[in-house]
């Protein structure tokens, strides 16, 4: 039975982020004067004109001693060494792959930074170069860690651990990088029955929890079996919850996603994306998170 819901638009306020905990945030838009005091050093997002420090991006002013910079609220992903990212292969070149990670330049995954099947350690030969497309093709998704940053800002990735590698069946959600909280670990096995990788670049990967945990294969064997229906329902519900949290501008981390999932259980999966239901479950999630903080 088809369900079609059409409605008149209503101006909705974003419910999400709680009132600032550390006092007033100094928000600026491009062209706003931050300060006329010349004693400050200018950092990212600022420029000097007529002895005034002016913001060049829209964001929050951050002051560290004499350094003033503006952290943009919505921008492309700026990688740091050690971040975990989820990326999509866009090109296969000689000895390296180009990976799209929602940053200003495509990231680079060198052939030598990639694990060989079986965990062999040897110098990559010409045959390995010719067989690159067998490992990763255009369109494939990978999880990787940032190894270093080139001088032009492009990231160099590596998949040198068995927990990284090609990703199998699942759902990708693309969000703004500023909404993903930096934590100790970004691989979470949620108790509701699915696993999630929170890429720092804003790519969230939701997938069914693999049965055997021993012997991570590094993604060389992809499971092509159909995912059972109960797992699918959990994954769809998680995906809708992530979309709800993003629309209401709440930070994404394992606890917030889990609370949102639990708050959404009384509703049908497809109803979660309706504006009223979204507001209701995000309000409940925010309340629980505030209670948790104490």
């Amino acid at each position: 039975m088809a369900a079609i819901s059409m409605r008149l638009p209503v101006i909705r306020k974003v419910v999400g982020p709680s009132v600032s905990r550390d006092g007033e945030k100094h928000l600026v838009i491009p062209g706003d004067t931050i300060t006329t005091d010349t004693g400050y050093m200018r950092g990212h997002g600022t420029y000097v004109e007529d002895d005034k420090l002016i913001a060049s991006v829209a964001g929050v002013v951050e002051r560290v001693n004499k350094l003033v910079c503006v952290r943009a609220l919505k921008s492309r992903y700026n990688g740091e060494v050690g971040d975990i990212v989820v990326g999509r292969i866009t090109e296969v070149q000689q000895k390296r792959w180009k990976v799209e990670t929602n940053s200003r330049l495509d990231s680079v995954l060198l052939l030598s930074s990639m694990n060989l099947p079986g965990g062999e350690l040897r110098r990559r030969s010409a045959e390995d170069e010719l067989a690159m497309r067998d490992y990763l093709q255009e369109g494939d998704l990978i999880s990787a860690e940032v190894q270093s940053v080139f001088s032009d800002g492009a990231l160099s990735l590596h998949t040198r651990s068995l927990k990284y590698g090609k990703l199998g069946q699942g759902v990708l959600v693309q969000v703004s990088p500023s909404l993903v909280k930096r934590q100790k670990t970004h691989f979470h096995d949620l108790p509701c029955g699915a696993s999630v990788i929170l890429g720092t670049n804003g790519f969230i990967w939701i997938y069914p929890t693999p049965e055997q945990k021993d012997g991570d294969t590094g993604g060389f064997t992809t499971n092509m079996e159909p995912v059972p229906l109960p797992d699918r329902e959990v994954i769809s519900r998680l995906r809708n919850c992530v979309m709800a949290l993003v629309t209401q501008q709440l930070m994404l981390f394992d606890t917030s996603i889990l609370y949102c999932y639990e708050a959404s259980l009384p509703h049908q999966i497809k109803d979660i994306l309706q504006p009223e239901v979204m507001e209701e479950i995000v309000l409940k999630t925010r309340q629980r998170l505030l209670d948790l903080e104490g």
Partner: protein
Amino acid sequence: MASVVLSEPEKLYILHGVQEDLRVDGRGCEDYRCAEVETDIISSTSGSARVKLANILVGVKAEMGTPMLEKPDEGYLEFSVDCSAYATPEFECWGGEELGAEIAATLYNVFSSENCVDLKLLCINPKENCWVLYVDVLLLQCGGNLFDAVSLAVKAALFNTRIPKVRVLEDEEGFKEIELSDDPYDCIRLNVDDVPCIVTLNKIGHRHVVDATLQEEACSLASLLVSVTSKGALTSIRKMGKGSLDPENIFEMMETGKRVGKLLHVALQKVLDEEESLGTSREKVGFLG
């Protein structure tokens, strides 16, 4: 057309999901996403509508012109579609021309049936003057399922169109003069009961889905576009895509299209009537909401 690149396991996941009637966002195969419709947002047109399924804006301008030679006592509709670069960078410069021409051609096809809009109402002076309705569609976002959203927006805009009442005065020498009525609210409205809506059915695996997202469109090789009136009559049918369709599949998809099309009309008419009844007391959202 803007499309996303997907990996093989992702496509497989979507395919298996459709087989089990549970799509990635939890919808069934015949469910539409939540759509928002608003009319009368552009004051400089005779009628306008905005549909937030894939963010489309439609404006209708009624202008005077000469009727076509084959149909001297009828007015006509002219469609033009503009794919703005705001939707996707691929539409920059001439990138969106092909898609725009395709959508416009489909609209001409859909409205080619004689009973859709009462064109005789648009006639002022047979063989000399008639109303020409210029329907301009602006695509602001490519969110999958463009044709459905465009047809919904066109129907809503035609419902909202107000054509000023004119009188033809003939004096003794035979000169005809067209007089516009003084009251700005004195106008004729179009009857949109028979205006068809397009339903796109994408074939994914062995089943078909309605209202596909960009990811689902990347997994489907063939799709069928049917235009259905509110009574369930088909006015046009078109196949798109590189893949092939079985005659049995086509029949099933047509039946689904008719069923879903009728529900679509009911839902849209309900929203339009609700908006009409609220009148000027409704807070217009426009593009700031």
